C-alpha cells in the first residue's frame, strides 16, 4: 500500500458525497449551510493552511451546538482527508488527534449514524497504513476492511464508505 492511491482526487470524492451526507442531518439546515460554506472553501484552496482553517471553522460550528453530530463528523472527515493526502506533514499528527477526539465524541452521541462512524474508523486505520505501510499494513488492513464492510452493511447507500473501500482494494491490488 502506498500513498499514491490517495491522490487529491479523494478530496473531490469526499466533497462530492457531502451532498448525500447532508441528508443525514437534514434537521440542522442552518448548520448544514454553515458546514457547506466552510467545506466549499477547500474547493478553491486545498493548502494545509486552508485545511486547518476549515477544521477550525468546523470546530466553531461545533461550539454552537455541542450535542450535534454533523460538525464532529466533518471535523474527523476533513482532518483525515488532510492526513491521507499529507501523511507526513507537520500538521498531520495534530489533525489525526483531532479526528480521534471527534470520533470518540461521536460515539457518545446516541443518535450518531453508526454507518458513518464505521466509515470514519476505517478511514482512520487507512490513514495509519498510508503513514507507515510496512509497519501498519499488516496490523490494520483487516480493521480497515471490516469497518468499511460494516458501514455498508448498516447503510448500503453509504457512498463514502463504498468509494473509500474501492480505493483501498485498488491499493491492495497494486501491491
Amino acid at each position, binding site marked *: 500500500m502506498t500513498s499514491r492511491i490517495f491522490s487529491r482526487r479523494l478530496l473531490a470524492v469526499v466533497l462530492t458525497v457531502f451532498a448525500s451526507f447532508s441528508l443525514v442531518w437534514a434537521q440542522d439546515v442552518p448548520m448544514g449551510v454553515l458546514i457547506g460554506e466552510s467545506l466549499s472553501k477547500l474547493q478553491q484552496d486545498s493548502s494545509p493552511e486552508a485545511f486547518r482553517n476549515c477544521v477550525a471553522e468546523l470546530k466553531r460550528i461545533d461550539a454552537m451546538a455541542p450535542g450535534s453530530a454533523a460538525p464532529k463528523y466533518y471535523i474527523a472527515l476533513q482532518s483525515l482527508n488532510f492526513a491521507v493526502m499529507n501523511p507526513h506533514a507537520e500538521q498531520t499528527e495534530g489533525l489525526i488527534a483531532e479526528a480521534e477526539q471527534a470520533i470518540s465524541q461521536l460515539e457518545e452521541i*446516541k443518535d450518531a449514524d453508526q454507518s458513518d462512524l464505521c466509515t470514519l474508523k476505517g478511514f482512520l486505520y487507512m490513514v495509519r497504513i498510508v503513514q507507515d505501510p510496512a509497519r501498519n499494513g499488516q496490523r490494520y488492513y*483487516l480493521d480497515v476492511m471490516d469497518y468499511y*464492510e460494516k458501514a455498508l452493511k448498516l447503510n448500503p447507500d453509504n457512498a463514502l464508505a463504498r468509494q473509500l473501500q474501492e480505493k483501498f482494494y485498488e491499493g491492495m491490488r497494486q501491491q
Partner: protein
Amino acid sequence: MKQFFASLFLALTALCGAFAQTPIHGTVTDAQGPLTGVNVFVVGTLDGGITDSLGRFSFTTNRTGVQTLRAVLLGYEEYEMTADVATFRNMEIRLREKAASLDEVVVTASTYSIGKSSQIKTLDALDVVMSGNSCGDLVAALQVLPGTAVVGENGKLYVRGGESEECQTFVNGMHVLVPYSTNVEGQSQRGRFSPFLFKGMSFSLGGYGGEYGQALSSVLPMETTDVASSDKLGVSASLLDWNVGGTKAFRQSSLSFNAALTDLGLYTKLFPDRCDWTLPYRKLAGEAQYKWELSANSVLKTYAGYDWTSVGMRTEGRNLSMNEHNVYANATLRTRIGQGCTLFAGVAESAVISDIDDALAAGDRYHNTRNEVHLKAELQQRFSPQFKFSAGVEDYLRGSGKQYNETGYTLSYHLLAAHVDAQLRIVPRLFLNVSARGERLSYNREWLLMPRATLSFVPNTRFQASVMAGRYSQTPEDDYIARGQFRLRQSTADHLILSMQYATARTLVRIEPYYKWYHRLPLLSDGVYTAEGYGYSRGVDVYLEDSSLLKNLTLTASYSFNDSKRLYLDYASPRTPEYASRHNFRLTAKYGFGKFIVGLAETYASGREYAAGTTPCYNSLDANVTWLAHPKVIVYASLNNLLGRTNVYRINPDGTQVGATRDRFFYIGIFVSLKNNKAYDISNF
C-alpha cells in the same frame, strides 16, 4: 426638518454600528512560549482565527456588546472570557496544559497487551503464530515475555516463581477451568484456544485489580473478536493437524464454527522420538461462536468448545492409556446503559472428564471429573474523566470427583466473591487504582478480604512508573482439599511490584522488580494437608522491544531473574521449587522481506534444582518462516532446537535424567481461505 436629519443621523449611525467590524487580536502562550494553531473565536459565530508561529491571532467580528471569546487547542484546557467585545484587544491569553484523563492513559505496569486491548495493538494473532517457537500455540508464544519460565516437560505458563495453576485464563471475563489440552507426563501441553479467536489479550504478571480472583500469580484475560462483517471459509493442514472452519455473517450477528483433528501418528512415523507409543496423541476438537449486536450499545457473545483427547504409551512395564473430554462454554452480555454506565453479565461452564488406565502401575484405573460454573455480573460507571468506578459479584460453583482403584473422593463447594474498583486521577499525571475483593469459601465458611492498589506516575506519553501492591488468593487443588479434610484454607500471596517503562513509537523498555510472599500454601503433615506452607518469590524482569534498527526488523529481548523458595506439599524444608529456574533469557528477531517473514528465537534457562541434583541449563535456538504465497494461502514452517541439544527437564531421585522425548520438532502447515474477501486473513480459527 432638523428632527428628520437628527433621526436619519441616528438611524445611519445604528446601521453602521450593525455592520461595524470590531477588531480582535492578541497572543496565546503557554509556560514554554507562543502557541501555534490555537483556534480563537467568538462563541456562536464563525468569527475567529488561528494563531501563527508567534502565537498571534487577529480577526474581526460584527458582534457588539458582551460576547464570549474562546481559545482551544488539543491537549490544553479551554480558555474562555466573557466581556464587551470592544475589550478583546491586545489580549494575552495563557493556556494551561490539559492533564490526561483516565481514558487517555493506559497503565501498562506488569501487563503485556496483545491485540487491541488498548487503543493501538502491538501484536495480533498472526504475530503470535509466527512467534519463534510457538507452532501456533498461544501459550508458547507468551513464553517469549519476561517473567515466564521454561518448563519443557509440560509447556504450561509458570509466572514469576509461581506454579502453573497460579496463572488463570479468562475468556470475555469468564473463567476457564482447564485452558490446556491434556497430554501424558513429560509431553508438552498446548493451549486449547486458537489465537485467531481473540482480538485482544492482556497478560498480567501480577498486581491486577479486584475483578480477577482465584489466581495467585497471574491472569490471562482474552477478548474474542467482534461480530464478523462477511462470510469466511477456510482450511488448514500440517503433518499433525487438519482444520476446517468458517463464519456466516448476518446483518447484526455472525455464527462461526471450527473443527480440528490433531494426530501425531503420521508425524511419529516420519520423525520417531524416544517414546514407545501404543496410541499416538490424537485430539478431536469442535468450537462454535455466535455473536449478536443487539443494538449499537449491546453485544451478546457466546462460545462453546469441546475437545476429546486420547493417547497411549508403553512406559516402565505398563501400557498407559489416557482419554479426556474437555467442554467449555460461555455467554456474556455487555451493554452500555447510558451516561457512562456499562453493565456486564456472564455465565461459563467448564467440565473435564479424564480416564487413565495403567496410570501408576499395571492394571490400575484412574477416573477424574471436574466441573465449574462461573456466574458474574459487573457494573462500571464513569463519573468524570478523573473518576471511574466498578463493582461486581461472582460465584464459582465447583464439583469434583476422583477415583483411583478403590479409593477416591467427591467434593462440591462454591466460592462467592464481590469486588469494588475505583480509578482516579489524584492530581495531573498521578493516577490511583484502588480495589478490594472479598471472597467466601463455602466448605470452611471462611471470609477473605483483599485490598489492592496501583499508584502510577505518567508524566508524558513515553514514560510511566507504577508501584503495585495487593493480596491475592486461590483455593487449593481439589486433591489437597480432599486430603485436607475440607478444612484447608485458601492460599494467599502478597504482591509488591515496581514498574518502569519507557516507550517510543519503535522502542519499548520495561524493568519490573517484584516481591511475592506466599502464605497458607498446602503442606503435607502426617498424611493430611494443612495450610501451614509458606514461601517467597522475588526477582526482576527486563524487556526490550525495538523495530528502529532496520526496516521490517523487530527485535525483542527479555531477561528474568527469579529467586524463590517455599515450604509446601511434601517438602521437608523450604527450598526452590523444581519448576523454577533462576535465570531465563529470550532473544527473538522477526524480519519481513517480500512475501516472506523469517523469525529466530533463542531461549536460555539456567538449571533447575532437584533433590538429586541440578539439571544442566536449557538452551534452544528456534527458527520459523512464513510465506505469504497468495492472498488466500499462507505457508508456515518452523524448526525448534536447531542445534539439536538434548535438554534435561528433571532428575529423578535415583539420579536418572528425564528430558525431551525428541531433540528437534519440525512443523509445516498451510492455511487456505476458500471463501474470504480479505487477503491473508485466516478464515478458520
